[in-house]
């Protein structure tokens, strides 16, 4: 494959920026590649920058949903940032509201949001752990 979308690792997060027109094979490759990378790096969050993406179809919309679902199962948060107005309108007209995917206006805000989401998750996890500890003690 000549075309490949680079996936960058930054700490606990993976960054990927889609800067070429997506064709279907590229999208499929990306899905697979991203899934492998999440597992390999034990990523906690994925930030997808689509600010250069100007054309979108239902397939790409579904791909984004798919990536989000896969990532959720692998316990990584996904945030899509920088969607162009035209792309947003197209997706809405196609009836794809990308439920369950967090969005942000730009990479900066997206990263802040992602960190927050991961931190919230860890807190929740911690609280649950404590609860388990106490209930385990009480049970004994």
């Amino acid at each position, binding site marked *: 494959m000549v075309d490949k979308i680079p996936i960058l690792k930054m700490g606990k997060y993976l960054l990927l920026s889609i800067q070429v027109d997506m064709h279907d094979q590229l999208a499929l490759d990306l899905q697979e590649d991203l899934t492998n990378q999440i597992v390999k790096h034990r990523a906690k969050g994925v930030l997808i920058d689509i600010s250069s993406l100007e054309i979108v179809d239902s397939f790409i919309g579904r791909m984004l949903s798919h990536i989000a679902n896969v990532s959720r199962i692998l316990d990584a948060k996904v945030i*899509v*940032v*920088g*969607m*162009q*107005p035209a*792309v*947003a*309108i197209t*997706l*809405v*007209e196609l009836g794809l*509201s*990308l439920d369950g995917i967090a*969005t*942000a*206006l*730009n990479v900066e*805000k*997206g990263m802040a949001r992602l960190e927050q989401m991961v931190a919230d998750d860890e807190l929740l996890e911690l609280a649950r752990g404590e609860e388990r500890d106490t209930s385990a003690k009480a049970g004994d």
Partner: protein
Amino acid sequence: MPASVIAELLQQHERELLDEWVTAQRLAGIRTDLVDEETVRSNSQELLKLLTVAAAEGLDDLHSAHWTPVKGMLDRLSRSQSRQGFTSSETATFVFSLKEPLFARIQAQCANPVEVLWDASKLLDKLGLYCVESYMGSREAIIREQQESMLELSTPVVELWKGILAIPLIGSLDSNRTQIVMEALLEKIVQTESDLAIIDITGVPTVDTMVAQHLLKTVTAAKLMGAKCIISGIRPQIAATIVHLGVELGDVVTKASLADAFQMALKELNVRLVSATAR
């Protein structure tokens, strides 16, 4: 040939025809508040001259080149009359009132008046209808212009605070307008990097299922871009209508007034307003 007969009549009796025509128009009622008799007379005279020239070439086809000057003159006249506030029948009466004097002449001068009368009547009817058509055309052009300027005027996106946009919608919403509103809002969100947008529908007279759907689309599009939308200014009747229609607003945040929405938006941004005098 009726054509040449009519042209001849027009030429020979120009003066009398003009006088009688203007009298006929006066009897039919000239809008003296909008136009004086002098103008009517000069218009009539101009048309009569052009008519004489054109009629000599043949009456049948108004689309042929020699009728162009007559049509041009009627066009100009109808346009200016429609802008001045004449009614369409007043505009048409200008042409139709030529019938009486012209028919009287034909009756008096011609050997076989019926044939010539028929041709003259057909001609004047066509010209009268042409007048009405161009009158309507210019009316429609005015309406279109106004619609367009309304569309541009009615979609301002204002920045209330750093990161908070408001778009006050006034007037009824259709799909065309919603599209413009949506685009304007999304563009502005990108431009100002705003996290929150308040759509205020205080000025929207009615909300039906279509309008609600359009609003939801806008909210969803903004959400996809990473901005949150609040819908505000929902009047009691509109709230009742929305519930009555069974429109599902989903998880869209709605507030009764713009002030409430603004307050909530500030809270979202972790901004607090403090009175300067309070301790």
